[in-house]
Protein backbone atom coordinates (compact mmCIF):
# COMPACT_ATOMS: atom_id res chain seq x y z
CA UNK A 1 0.00 0.00 0.00
CA UNK A 2 2.84 2.40 0.84
CA UNK A 3 4.42 1.72 -2.55
CA UNK A 4 1.14 2.54 -4.28
CA UNK A 5 0.65 5.83 -2.40
CA UNK A 6 4.25 6.89 -3.09
CA UNK A 7 3.87 6.08 -6.79
CA UNK A 8 0.60 8.05 -6.99
CA UNK A 9 2.07 11.20 -5.40
CA UNK A 10 5.21 10.91 -7.55
CA UNK A 11 3.00 10.59 -10.64
CA UNK A 12 1.19 13.80 -9.65
CA UNK A 13 4.45 15.74 -9.15
CA UNK A 14 5.98 14.25 -12.30
CA UNK A 15 2.88 15.29 -14.26
CA UNK A 16 3.01 18.79 -12.77
CA UNK A 17 6.61 19.06 -13.95
CA UNK A 18 5.61 18.01 -17.47
CA UNK A 19 2.87 20.67 -17.54
CA UNK A 20 4.97 23.51 -16.05
CA UNK A 21 7.82 22.77 -18.47
CA UNK A 22 5.34 22.40 -21.38
CA UNK A 23 6.60 18.93 -22.30
CA UNK A 24 2.84 18.24 -22.44
CA UNK A 25 2.47 20.71 -25.32
CA UNK A 26 3.16 18.93 -28.65
CA UNK A 27 3.93 22.23 -30.42
CA UNK A 28 6.68 22.90 -27.86
CA UNK A 29 8.21 19.45 -28.41
CA UNK A 30 8.17 19.88 -32.19
CA UNK A 31 9.70 23.36 -31.78
CA UNK A 32 12.56 21.71 -29.87
CA UNK A 33 13.08 19.03 -32.53
CA UNK A 34 13.00 21.58 -35.38
CA UNK A 35 16.68 22.56 -35.04
CA UNK A 36 17.04 23.86 -38.61
CA UNK A 37 13.97 26.09 -38.53
CA UNK A 38 12.30 28.01 -35.72
CA UNK A 39 14.12 26.34 -32.85
CA UNK A 40 12.90 26.40 -29.25
CA UNK A 41 15.73 25.08 -27.02
CA UNK A 42 13.54 24.96 -23.85
CA UNK A 43 13.23 21.19 -23.63
CA UNK A 44 17.00 20.80 -23.39
CA UNK A 45 16.69 22.68 -20.10
CA UNK A 46 13.81 20.44 -18.97
CA UNK A 47 16.03 17.41 -19.39
CA UNK A 48 19.01 19.28 -17.93
CA UNK A 49 17.05 20.34 -14.85
CA UNK A 50 15.67 16.84 -14.32
CA UNK A 51 19.07 15.17 -14.76
CA UNK A 52 20.74 17.65 -12.39
CA UNK A 53 18.23 16.94 -9.60
CA UNK A 54 17.86 13.20 -10.17
CA UNK A 55 21.58 12.67 -10.81
CA UNK A 56 22.50 14.00 -7.35
CA UNK A 57 19.62 12.47 -5.36
CA UNK A 58 19.98 9.08 -7.12
CA UNK A 59 23.53 8.78 -5.80
CA UNK A 60 22.68 10.05 -2.32
CA UNK A 61 19.90 7.45 -2.08
CA UNK A 62 22.21 4.63 -3.18
CA UNK A 63 24.50 5.44 -0.25
CA UNK A 64 21.65 4.51 2.10
CA UNK A 65 21.84 0.92 0.88
CA UNK A 66 18.10 0.25 0.57
CA UNK A 67 15.01 2.32 -0.27
CA UNK A 68 12.80 3.39 2.65
CA UNK A 69 9.75 1.30 1.69
CA UNK A 70 11.22 -1.53 -0.41
CA UNK A 71 13.85 -4.21 0.08
CA UNK A 72 16.14 -3.15 -2.79
CA UNK A 73 16.81 -0.69 -5.57
CA UNK A 74 15.65 -2.14 -8.90
CA UNK A 75 17.66 -1.31 -12.04
CA UNK A 76 17.60 -2.78 -15.56
CA UNK A 77 19.75 -5.92 -15.81
CA UNK A 78 21.20 -5.28 -19.27
CA UNK A 79 24.10 -2.87 -19.65
CA UNK A 80 25.38 -3.47 -23.17
CA UNK A 81 23.96 -2.15 -26.44
CA UNK A 82 21.92 -4.49 -28.62
CA UNK A 83 19.86 -4.26 -31.78
CA UNK A 84 16.39 -4.02 -30.14
CA UNK A 85 17.57 -1.04 -28.05
CA UNK A 86 18.88 0.87 -31.05
CA UNK A 87 16.05 -0.01 -33.46
CA UNK A 88 13.43 0.64 -30.78
CA UNK A 89 14.92 4.06 -29.98
CA UNK A 90 14.82 4.99 -33.68
CA UNK A 91 11.19 3.88 -34.04
CA UNK A 92 10.25 5.78 -30.89
CA UNK A 93 12.05 8.91 -32.13
CA UNK A 94 10.14 8.91 -35.42
CA UNK A 95 6.83 8.60 -33.55
CA UNK A 96 7.87 11.32 -31.11
CA UNK A 97 8.61 13.71 -33.98
CA UNK A 98 5.42 12.89 -35.88
CA UNK A 99 3.08 13.37 -32.92
CA UNK A 100 5.01 15.60 -30.52
CA UNK A 101 4.20 13.21 -27.67
CA UNK A 102 6.27 10.79 -25.64
CA UNK A 103 4.41 8.47 -23.23
CA UNK A 104 4.30 10.60 -20.04
CA UNK A 105 3.09 13.81 -21.68
CA UNK A 106 0.53 11.85 -23.73
CA UNK A 107 -1.07 10.50 -20.52
CA UNK A 108 -0.99 13.96 -18.88
CA UNK A 109 -2.51 15.78 -21.85
CA UNK A 110 -5.16 13.09 -22.37
CA UNK A 111 -6.88 15.00 -19.53
CA UNK A 112 -6.92 18.23 -21.56
CA UNK A 113 -9.94 17.06 -23.54
CA UNK A 114 -8.70 16.74 -27.15
CA UNK A 115 -9.90 13.39 -28.55
CA UNK A 116 -6.82 13.11 -30.77
CA UNK A 117 -4.74 12.56 -27.63
CA UNK A 118 -6.97 9.64 -26.70
CA UNK A 119 -6.41 8.25 -30.18
CA UNK A 120 -2.65 8.62 -29.66
CA UNK A 121 -2.77 6.88 -26.25
CA UNK A 122 -4.95 4.04 -27.60
CA UNK A 123 -2.55 3.46 -30.51
CA UNK A 124 0.43 3.67 -28.13
CA UNK A 125 -1.05 1.04 -25.79
CA UNK A 126 -1.85 -1.16 -28.80
CA UNK A 127 1.76 -0.80 -29.99
CA UNK A 128 3.00 -1.74 -26.50
CA UNK A 129 0.75 -4.80 -26.36
CA UNK A 130 1.85 -5.93 -29.82
CA UNK A 131 5.45 -5.96 -28.62
CA UNK A 132 4.82 -7.32 -25.11
CA UNK A 133 2.48 -10.10 -26.14
CA UNK A 134 3.43 -10.74 -29.74
CA UNK A 135 7.17 -10.26 -29.90
CA UNK A 136 8.48 -10.68 -26.36
CA UNK A 137 7.38 -12.49 -23.23
CA UNK A 138 9.79 -11.29 -20.57
CA UNK A 139 8.87 -8.94 -17.75
CA UNK A 140 10.20 -8.13 -14.31
Amino acid at each position, binding site marked *: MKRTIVAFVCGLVFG*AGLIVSQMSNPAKV*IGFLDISGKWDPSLALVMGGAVAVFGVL*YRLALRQGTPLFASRFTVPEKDSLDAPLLVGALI*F*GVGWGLGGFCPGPAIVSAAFGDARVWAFVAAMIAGMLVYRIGLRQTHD
Partner: protein
Amino acid sequence: MTIVNFTPWSALFGGALIGLAAASMWWLIGRLAGVSNILGTAMISRGEDFAWRAAFIAGLFLAGLAAVVLFPGDVHFNLEAGYGQVLFAGALVGLGTQMGSGCTSGHGVCGVSRLSPRSIAATLLFMAAGMVTVYFWVQQP
Protein backbone atom coordinates in the same frame (compact mmCIF):
# COMPACT_ATOMS: atom_id res chain seq x y z
CA MET B 1 17.98 28.63 -37.59
CA THR B 2 16.30 31.22 -35.40
CA ILE B 3 15.56 30.80 -31.72
CA VAL B 4 11.89 31.32 -30.82
CA ASN B 5 9.52 30.79 -27.87
CA PHE B 6 12.42 30.08 -25.47
CA THR B 7 11.11 29.66 -21.89
CA PRO B 8 14.21 28.83 -19.84
CA TRP B 9 12.87 29.35 -16.30
CA SER B 10 9.66 27.34 -16.59
CA ALA B 11 11.67 24.64 -18.42
CA LEU B 12 14.26 24.43 -15.62
CA PHE B 13 11.65 24.55 -12.86
CA GLY B 14 9.45 21.92 -14.53
CA GLY B 15 12.52 19.79 -15.17
CA ALA B 16 13.53 20.06 -11.50
CA LEU B 17 10.01 18.89 -10.48
CA ILE B 18 10.36 15.89 -12.80
CA GLY B 19 13.75 15.12 -11.27
CA LEU B 20 12.35 15.48 -7.75
CA ALA B 21 9.45 13.10 -8.51
CA ALA B 22 11.81 10.54 -10.04
CA ALA B 23 14.21 10.86 -7.09
CA SER B 24 11.36 10.36 -4.58
CA MET B 25 10.26 7.16 -6.34
CA TRP B 26 13.84 5.94 -6.26
CA TRP B 27 14.55 6.91 -2.65
CA LEU B 28 11.25 5.63 -1.25
CA ILE B 29 10.41 2.53 -3.30
CA GLY B 30 13.62 1.89 -5.24
CA ARG B 31 12.04 2.19 -8.68
CA LEU B 32 13.07 4.24 -11.71
CA ALA B 33 10.38 6.55 -13.07
CA GLY B 34 10.40 5.36 -16.67
CA VAL B 35 6.87 5.98 -17.93
CA SER B 36 6.92 3.57 -20.89
CA ASN B 37 8.29 0.74 -18.75
CA ILE B 38 5.79 1.39 -15.95
CA LEU B 39 2.88 1.47 -18.41
CA GLY B 40 4.12 -1.50 -20.45
CA THR B 41 4.72 -3.75 -17.43
CA ALA B 42 1.51 -2.64 -15.66
CA MET B 43 -0.39 -4.44 -18.41
CA ILE B 44 1.25 -7.75 -17.52
CA SER B 45 1.42 -7.37 -13.70
CA ARG B 46 -0.84 -8.52 -10.87
CA GLY B 47 -1.49 -7.44 -7.27
CA GLU B 48 0.64 -4.66 -5.81
CA ASP B 49 3.04 -4.87 -8.78
CA PHE B 50 0.09 -3.70 -10.84
CA ALA B 51 -1.27 -1.29 -8.22
CA TRP B 52 1.77 0.96 -7.83
CA ARG B 53 2.23 1.21 -11.58
CA ALA B 54 -1.45 2.02 -12.16
CA ALA B 55 -1.27 4.60 -9.34
CA PHE B 56 1.70 6.32 -10.96
CA ILE B 57 -0.12 6.50 -14.31
CA ALA B 58 -3.29 7.75 -12.56
CA GLY B 59 -1.18 10.46 -10.87
CA LEU B 60 0.07 11.66 -14.27
CA PHE B 61 -3.47 11.83 -15.66
CA LEU B 62 -4.87 13.54 -12.56
CA ALA B 63 -2.09 16.15 -12.69
CA GLY B 64 -3.33 16.99 -16.19
CA LEU B 65 -6.95 17.05 -15.06
CA ALA B 66 -6.19 19.23 -12.02
CA ALA B 67 -4.21 21.68 -14.14
CA VAL B 68 -6.91 22.07 -16.77
CA VAL B 69 -9.68 22.46 -14.14
CA LEU B 70 -7.80 24.76 -11.73
CA PHE B 71 -5.67 26.82 -14.15
CA PRO B 72 -7.32 26.52 -17.57
CA GLY B 73 -5.71 29.72 -18.87
CA ASP B 74 -2.18 28.56 -18.02
CA VAL B 75 -2.22 25.12 -19.66
CA HIS B 76 -0.50 25.33 -23.04
CA PHE B 77 -1.57 22.75 -25.59
CA ASN B 78 -1.32 23.04 -29.35
CA LEU B 79 -1.58 20.00 -31.63
CA GLU B 80 -1.48 20.35 -35.40
CA ALA B 81 -1.53 16.67 -36.40
CA GLY B 82 -4.76 15.00 -37.53
CA TYR B 83 -6.15 11.59 -36.50
CA GLY B 84 -4.21 9.55 -39.07
CA GLN B 85 -0.90 11.07 -38.01
CA VAL B 86 -1.47 10.73 -34.25
CA LEU B 87 -2.59 7.10 -34.63
CA PHE B 88 0.53 6.23 -36.62
CA ALA B 89 2.75 8.22 -34.21
CA GLY B 90 1.17 6.50 -31.17
CA ALA B 91 1.71 3.03 -32.61
CA LEU B 92 5.39 3.84 -33.29
CA VAL B 93 5.87 5.28 -29.79
CA GLY B 94 4.25 2.23 -28.18
CA LEU B 95 6.23 -0.30 -30.21
CA GLY B 96 9.52 1.63 -30.13
CA THR B 97 9.55 2.27 -26.39
CA GLN B 98 8.94 -1.40 -25.55
CA MET B 99 11.49 -2.67 -28.09
CA GLY B 100 13.99 -0.02 -26.98
CA SER B 101 13.28 -0.52 -23.23
CA GLY B 102 12.48 3.12 -22.48
CA CYS B 103 11.49 6.62 -23.46
CA THR B 104 12.31 10.22 -22.61
CA SER B 105 11.90 9.61 -18.86
CA GLY B 106 13.47 6.17 -18.40
CA HIS B 107 16.38 6.68 -20.80
CA GLY B 108 16.52 10.48 -21.15
CA VAL B 109 16.25 11.43 -17.48
CA CYS B 110 16.91 8.38 -15.28
CA GLY B 111 19.31 6.48 -17.54
CA VAL B 112 21.37 9.51 -18.56
CA SER B 113 21.65 10.50 -14.86
CA ARG B 114 22.88 6.99 -14.06
CA LEU B 115 25.40 7.26 -16.95
CA SER B 116 23.98 4.05 -18.44
CA PRO B 117 25.60 3.42 -21.85
CA ARG B 118 22.33 1.92 -23.15
CA SER B 119 20.32 4.98 -22.12
CA ILE B 120 22.85 7.48 -23.47
CA ALA B 121 22.87 5.69 -26.84
CA ALA B 122 19.06 5.43 -26.91
CA THR B 123 18.62 9.11 -25.99
CA LEU B 124 21.01 10.31 -28.71
CA LEU B 125 19.25 8.06 -31.25
CA PHE B 126 15.64 8.97 -30.44
CA MET B 127 16.49 12.67 -30.38
CA ALA B 128 18.27 12.41 -33.73
CA ALA B 129 15.37 10.39 -35.19
CA GLY B 130 12.88 12.97 -33.89
CA MET B 131 14.87 15.84 -35.39
CA VAL B 132 15.20 14.13 -38.77
CA THR B 133 11.46 13.31 -38.76
CA VAL B 134 10.49 16.91 -38.02
CA TYR B 135 12.95 18.21 -40.63
CA PHE B 136 11.43 16.10 -43.42
CA TRP B 137 7.79 15.57 -42.47
CA VAL B 138 6.50 18.07 -39.93
CA GLN B 139 5.79 21.74 -40.64
CA GLN B 140 5.58 24.22 -37.79
CA PRO B 141 2.79 26.82 -38.21
